[in-house]
């Protein structure tokens, strides 16, 4: 699917007759059906991936088959409607959030223009309120008195295949970024709604490959990329070689080593592709610099968790490896790399699902003696927390001028910002490793940050135009600081961001690069015994 040219899309988002630009649809939303055509949906999951996952203990991914969203017949199970309604009932009983979010919305519309998908596509069903109404209308019909008595008059409608298709379309045009929930007077969180929709869809075998394939990979090989242990090790070793070439420092890293003090887990994307690679080099250098006794794991070689984008059972199963490996290796605690959705899982779900981690110790920095009380139960520390503490205690030998080629801004990733409250730690680090970095406009940062537009497993190429549209608010805020301050580097603490923002910048703001905060740390480190080349591009310098 060819992506629209920049000039076309730049015009289309402003002038296109959409609800975001001033047009009003003529038809009631219930009368508009979802039409699938190339470019507006992520590919369906491959049969063998679904079969594999369904064969795994504790997981339920039924109805593996060949199908396409473009077909009229989705080959749903005979009793699909019963499955969906029963699934909904079950989830209403399991999640108070779902019940309350179904009941409390007053349709004030405050959320409408807070969604990056709405701003970029102008599709009214991308207003968070309407996305939720897609499910709420069914909920009313089958689970509320008003809906049962008054039907459509009370905003209720029958569950049909058409509704199911609409769910598929719009639950995969939401990145569960939670920006709407910041503005909602009742804290209604569309991420919860989208999660439920996706869980329900999986019950009848409707899912996308870009999520289920990484999930299968992660289950089997330990990481989304499907890197087998030797390959994973090779990749990290390559990065170490690069560091040696650039700085003359040989890093002392290990894999699956028992008795290490710390287990380090980061998204596998960091050891797989640019620009994440440079972030991983930053980690290697940082740990070398302070002489941390740590190990990588090939078994728990994935920080990210695409299970979060399928259902809670899968999220739990994939996440379980972190504690299992920490226990097997006998480490004291875990440090986690830069990743957005990984930290949603680690911060808000891990201890609940797979804890208590009573075989670990409350994390304590061996260099500074700081005890991380905020991770007293989970026993997992964010690399930015760990690094900020090192800087505060003067444990890092830093030279900002080594980042002289960088004029940075900082993108808060959705999950660390809105599901964790990790805002100032990376900023503190930036203050100490790079000169004169600047903030984007205030309505686009911190808890109001805009998603990269491709989170929750939507970072797939077949929906590139959608991604460029939904990434527009973020890209536009970056453009603002590029124009005003000549920013050339968008830093972040998220592996998906590093990949997706790169595409986004290439499209909307060519010339602006993307990096992890740890890359900038790596650039600035003065290593003991270094034999550093002239690195005009930091760790990216080709020598």
């Amino acid at each position: 699917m060819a992506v629209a040219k920049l000039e076309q899309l730049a015009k289309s988002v402003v002038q296109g007759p959409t609800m975001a630009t001033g047009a009003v649809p003529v038809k009631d939303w219930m009368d508009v059906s979802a039409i699938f055509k190339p470019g507006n949906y992520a590919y369906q999951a491959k049969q063998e991936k679904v079969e594999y996952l369904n064969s795994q203990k504790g997981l339920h991914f039924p109805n593996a088959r060949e199908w396409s969203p473009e077909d009229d017949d989705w080959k749903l199970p005979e009793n699909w409607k019963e499955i969906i309604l029963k699934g909904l009932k079950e989830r209403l009983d399991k999640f108070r959030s779902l019940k309350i979010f179904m009941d409390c919305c007053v349709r004030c519309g405050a959320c409408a223009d807070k969604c990056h998908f709405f701003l970029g596509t102008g599709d009214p069903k991308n207003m968070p309120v309407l996305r939720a109404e897609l499910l709420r209308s069914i909920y009313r019909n089958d689970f509320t008195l008003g809906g049962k008595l008054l039907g459509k008059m009370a905003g209720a409608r029958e569950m049909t295949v058409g509704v199911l298709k609409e769910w598929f379309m719009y639950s995969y045009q939401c990145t569960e970024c939670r920006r709407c929930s910041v503005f909602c007077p009742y804290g209604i969180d569309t991420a919860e709604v989208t999660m439920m929709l996706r869980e329900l869809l999986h019950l009848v075998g409707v899912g996308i490959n870009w999520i289920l394939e990484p999930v299968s990979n992660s289950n089997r090989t330990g990481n989304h990329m499907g890197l087998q242990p030797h390959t994973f090790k090779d990749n990290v070793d390559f990065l170490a070689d690069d560091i040696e070439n650039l700085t003359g420092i040989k890093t002392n890293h290990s894999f699956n080593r028992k008795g290490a003090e710390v287990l380090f887990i980061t998204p596998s994307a960091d050891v797989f592709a640019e620009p994440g690679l440079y972030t991983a080099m930053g980690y290697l250098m940082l740990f070398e610099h302070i002489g941390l006794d740590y190990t990588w794991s090939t078994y728990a070689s994935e920080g990210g968790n695409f299970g979060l984008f399928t259902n809670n059972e899968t999220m739990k199963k994939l996440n379980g490896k972190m504690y299992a490996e920490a226990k097997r290796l006998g480490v004291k605690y875990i440090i986690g790399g830069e990743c957005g959705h990984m930290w949603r899982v680690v911060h808000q779900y891990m201890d609940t699902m797979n804890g208590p981690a009573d075989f670990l110790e409350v994390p304590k920095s061996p260099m500074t003696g700081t005890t991380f009380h905020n991770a007293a139960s989970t026993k997992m520390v964010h690399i930015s927390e760990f690094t900020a503490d090192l800087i505060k205690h003067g444990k890092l030998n830093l030279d900002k001028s080594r980042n002289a080629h960088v004029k940075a801004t900082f993108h808060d990733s959705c999950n660390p910002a809105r599901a964790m409250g990790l805002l100032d730690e990376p900023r503190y680090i930036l203050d100490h490793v790079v000169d004169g970095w600047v903030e984007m406009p205030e309505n686009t940062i911190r808890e109001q940050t805009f998603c990269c537009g491709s989170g929750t497993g939507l970072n797939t190429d077949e929906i590139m135009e959608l991604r460029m549209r939904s990434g527009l608010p973020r890209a536009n805020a970056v453009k603002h600081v590029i124009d005003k301050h000549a920013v050339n580097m968008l830093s972040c603490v998220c592996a998906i961001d590093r990949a997706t923002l790169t595409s986004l910048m290439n499209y909307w703001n060519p010339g602006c690069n993307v990096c992890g905060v740890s890359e900038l740390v790596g650039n600035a480190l003065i290593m003991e015994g270094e034999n550093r080349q002239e690195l005009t591009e930091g760790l990216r310098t080709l020598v």
Partner: protein
Amino acid sequence: MKYAFSFLAVIALILIAGLGSQIPGMQYLFGVVLPYLAIMLFVGGFVYRVMDWAKSPVPFSIPTTCGQGSSLDFIKQDKLECPTTTTEVAGRMFLEIFFFRSLFRNTKSEIHDGPKVTYESSKWLWLFALIFHYSFLVIVLRHMRFFLEPVPFVLSILEGVDSMLQIGQPAMYLTDVFILVGLLFLYGRRLITRHVKYISLNNDYFPLVLIFSIAVTGILMRYFLRTDIDIINIKNLAIGLVTFSPVIGAKIGAIFYIHLFLVCTLLAYFPFSKLMHMGGVFMSPTRNMANNSRSKRHINPWNDPEIKPHSYAGYEDEFREFMVDAGIPVEKELAAAEDKA
């Protein structure tokens, strides 16, 4: 159409009460039976709904953090936007419930040529929502004087403040004006703001029209149609209702019964509608939970211990050869593993 329907519905209600209450003998129905029924539905329904919510557990700790969390001692926590303790959560909830904190953040986005996306602070909804809700609250409190004898001092103060401008006779209540203004705004934006109009349902227009009509009939009674309104008589009925010895005294005008019937409708409708946001706002997990899920384990009652990760043993069995080749430590050496097999 939807907005028109809500008018029709309320007009029908007004006709029922206006005409019905004038039929001899029906005053007891409209003055006693229906109010009791409505109160029962309201209280019973409200309690039922809240209990029903409470029946579903909160499996995960999912607060939406809107500020810096508690972390290192040199990083300043935003205690009200990202609370860690129960007291801080209470503070956050207080701001949310009494000052509509989240709505206060509201912005309006626009896309201009370039493209350039802009965000402007937009506090109108917040302001008028606050005006409406507080006026409603004061009006409900003021009405307590009908049910209490003697009238408590605080209520007299409240009335004094509410009528402090001393306009007209009897003195005009500020909240009477404010609630109408608030309702007109809330209704008006449903007609004018295009995206709000598109999402609005009957369920959104109806309560606004209903409450507007309640306010208007109340105002008519107090300021304009006083001939049939014997306040002593009404108070006797009200006190009779709360002491479970209701009496319908001398004739009371139809406007009173209309007002009362609309209130009854609102009470009965309340628990089965979106108006339950009044209860829900207290129970929303994204707002009423502490952001302490890494320092204190949150328990999920239905957590399934049987869901275990793909085991390390299984992983090593599949990749042992590669691991040994690459010099990655293994639990079972190749020979040992083969012996077993």
